[in-house]
């Protein structure tokens, strides 16, 4: 269908590009080791963008009617916005692993085994264990009227686990996650089990909340939510609109010198890995923050064109709507302290495992208020128990100026690789 659409486009419009994505997934839910739900999903979608008289038209379909899609995109262009869009030409693509045949071949039996393997390792009286295992296999094909026509295959296996454990009159919930292009190996499962057991042990006792200005150590899951305003502030569109607090800070050191953040689509076999973005721009590794200095924000073709900047290879397209800038794999550079070292450096404070999205967390101001869903008291460099009913609050951009230490053991959370991060200046308040 892509070839037909682009052939039509060459004859009728200024320029065009299209992306076709397919995905077939199998998802199982296991509760206490038994499969309690099973679902497959097959998806196929086409997204077409045309430029007519300088106006952009987009249309998408999950159907098979190519002429109707073309007409819809023309109608969209007649009503569409103007942008000086320039499409990329063909160029060699970097090598990156996005597809593993044995993952693609995994079916109900293999995924059930995987889920049980994990659940069995954690089974214990008083625990309820739910595991979601998903395997998806798909393809991405991108083409344009300048001759780009490229396709790559993708697999993704993800394992999500929730352990609910009785703790006195209360129950605690601890979650874990692993994902990649291949089936997770024994080492990944081991690491997940050790990590979950550690957190369940910490959560087993309760403790009093620390003082209001105690240092806060964020574990990777909590850190991902915490960093959302930073991510939003690094999207080119926020620069363009002037809504990013970092917009005037390119080249300046605004964060702690130990902080470096990279967007890395070229790491093998991870959820955000890809050789090319959805607009045909080859992928490359991109430092966003280096030693606390803001280096770059990300652009797709259209926001880049409006800002007078080239695309950074971050165009993301789904079947419907416009292309948007989107990150690939975000990597926060790890430090040199192990967790015990961080706890000792912390002395007394709050170790934060999971937070809720919170209110007021905005990329404009950076202010945040996150209720702590799971957090632990640290006293004398040791975890003494679970803390209930506190929120952490402050300003992301300010507290990222006072880093007390970075862990060496980073963990993948979704498509972000994050180490534990010790921060000063975060307020801890009763909820």
């Amino acid at each position, binding site marked *: 269908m892509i070839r037909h659409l682009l052939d039509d486009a060459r004859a009728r419009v200024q320029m065009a590009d299209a992306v076709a994505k397919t995905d077939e997934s199998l998802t*199982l839910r296991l*509760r*206490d080791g*038994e*499969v*309690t*739900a*099973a*679902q*497959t*999903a*097959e*998806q*196929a*979608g086409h997204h077409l963008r045309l430029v007519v008289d300088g106006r*952009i*038209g*987009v*249309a*998408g*379909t*999950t*159907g*098979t*009617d190519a002429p*109707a*899609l073309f007409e*819809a*995109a023309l*109608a*969209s262009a*007649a*009503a*569409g*916005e103007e942008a000086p869009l320039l499409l990329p030409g063909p160029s060699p693509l970097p090598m990156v692993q996005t597809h593993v045949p044995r993952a693609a071949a995994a079916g*109900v039996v293999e995924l*059930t085994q995987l889920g049980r393997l994990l659940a069995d390792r954690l089974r214990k009286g008083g625990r309820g264990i739910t595991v979601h295992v998903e395997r998806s296999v798909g393809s991405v094909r991108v083409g344009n009227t300048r001759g780009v026509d490229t396709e790559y295959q993708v697999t993704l296996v993800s394992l999500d686990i929730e352990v609910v454990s009785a703790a006195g009159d209360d129950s605690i919930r601890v979650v874990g996650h692993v994902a990649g292009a291949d089936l997770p190996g024994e080492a990944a499962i081991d690491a997940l089990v050790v990590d979950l057991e550690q957190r369940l042990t910490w959560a087993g006792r309760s403790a009093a909340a620390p003082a209001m200005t105690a240092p806060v150590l964020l574990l990777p899951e909590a850190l991902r939510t915490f960093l959302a305003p930073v991510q939003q502030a690094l999207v080119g569109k926020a620069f363009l*609109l002037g*809504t990013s607090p970092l917009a005037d800070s390119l080249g300046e050191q605004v964060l702690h010198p130990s902080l470096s953040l990279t967007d890395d689509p070229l790491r093998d076999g991870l959820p955000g890995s890809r050789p090319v973005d959805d607009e045909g721009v080859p992928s490359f590794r991109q430092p966003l923050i280096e030693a606390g200095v803001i280096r770059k924000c990300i652009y797709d073709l259209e926001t880049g064109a409006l800002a007078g900047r080239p695309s950074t290879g971050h165009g993301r397209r789904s*079947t*419907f*709507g*416009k292309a948007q800038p989107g990150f690939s794999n975000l990597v926060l550079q790890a430090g040199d302290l192990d967790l015990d070292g961080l706890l000792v450096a912390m002395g007394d404070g709050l170790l934060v495992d999971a937070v*809720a999205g919170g*209110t007021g967390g905005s990329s*404009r*101001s950076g202010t945040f208020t996150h*209720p702590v*869903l799971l957090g632990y008291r640290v006293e004398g460099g040791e975890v003494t128990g679970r803390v209930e009913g506190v929120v952490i609050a402050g300003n992301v951009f300010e507290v990222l100026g006072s880093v007390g230490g970075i862990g060496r053991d980073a963990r993948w959370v979704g498509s972000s690789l994050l180490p534990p991060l010790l921060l000063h200046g975060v307020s801890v308040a009763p909820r």
Partner: protein
Amino acid sequence: MLERLLDAIKGSRADYADIRLERSFITSVAWRGRRLEGASTGTDVGGTVRCLNQGHGWGVATFNRLDDLEARLARAHELSLAVRPAEPIVLAPAPMREGHARPAPTDDARDIPLLEKRRYLEHLNAEMLRFDRRIIDTQSAYRDEVTECWFVNSDGTALHELRPDVTLSALAVARDGGVLERAVESLGARGGWTRVREQEELFRTAARRAVSLLDAKPVRSGSLPVVLDPRLAGVVAHETVGHLCEADTQLEDPVAAALAAPGRRLGSELLTIGDDGSVGGLRGTLPFDDEGTPPSNTLLVQHGVVVGRLHSRETAARFGERPTGNARAINFRHAPLVRLTNTYIANGSGTFADLIRDVKLGVYACDAVGSRHRGDGYSFTAGHGYMIRDGALAEPVKSVVLVGFVTELLGAVDRVAGDFRWHESGGGCGKGGQSPLPVSEGAPHIRLRAAEIRGQAP
């Protein structure tokens, strides 16, 4: 199409099977400040097949390509056999139904050119931009989605329906010196183009509110009498009683099961709360739910006491109750869950003025921009508010957050006014990864004798 689906389902080897197909036409337009963000169209086609076998669980297959339904049914059957639920799954009996439901075709958003929709939204967006020089940014969005749905099951039910949905939203950002405020208004309707015409006032309201919030002071924290406007009262009913009374939520969450056990007092004698997917023409209204059950008016709380639950066929059988027509899926990519439709607080008597007349110092909290809960603790963030002083509305206040345990909040209701109205926002409800599902809420003004307000520390 229905004949084709019925033919396919006859070949299924499963004890029970259903097929739901959808074809949606979507257009959307967005403006940001003075710039058109885009005007796009889409066609979304696909289906879901579910199979259930005795002693096993649900096997589900979703897809875009409509050919080879037999293979989809076989796959869902095979997946069903791989499932071993802890409790056996039985479906409450449902009579065979046949039906076609199509609204009047004169109002179809698909007949309006995209260019006209773009121009209309440009005009509405300009209402915000020119409202006041302190308006520095806007986001305006228009979206319509017309979905044709077909549903058949192995009991012989065959339904065909057209579901039109249209939404408008307005966000205004105002700035004065270093103070930045935003206000949101939206509208959603299960209808066509005429339902979103002449909405200039909606956009001006967003702009007016953003500007007025510039001068508003954050409310001071403390325990005060609070009057909730119908919008916020409706959201409180939806988020508390509504979700607690979803039978699948009760099966998963012991806190919900305990709080909303039939016969338990959950709120004041004055509160009667229900969910009605059958009331005419609202966003949560459907002729049939996504299992083919006609929705009903289900009382959940009567005079403060829990009297009902919302069901799918599966949860109805589990509880030995009747299906209520609340099995809904956001689209063909998902199997239905027990969902709310139009959730309401029944009308009382008296006016808004009656509610504030004897309040010496209190807060009038309006609209809801956020809510969250953990266990039985809830918080609701109002969009804006006013102080009530000596029985009259006084200065505007902002950052009004209402917090408390559900029984405290609902138990504190001491007046319910007689000014009931439905509110149909452009957003929707989220559950189990399915969002936004079109719903609406309705309520009169209600008063809480005292509630914990969290704004700025006193």
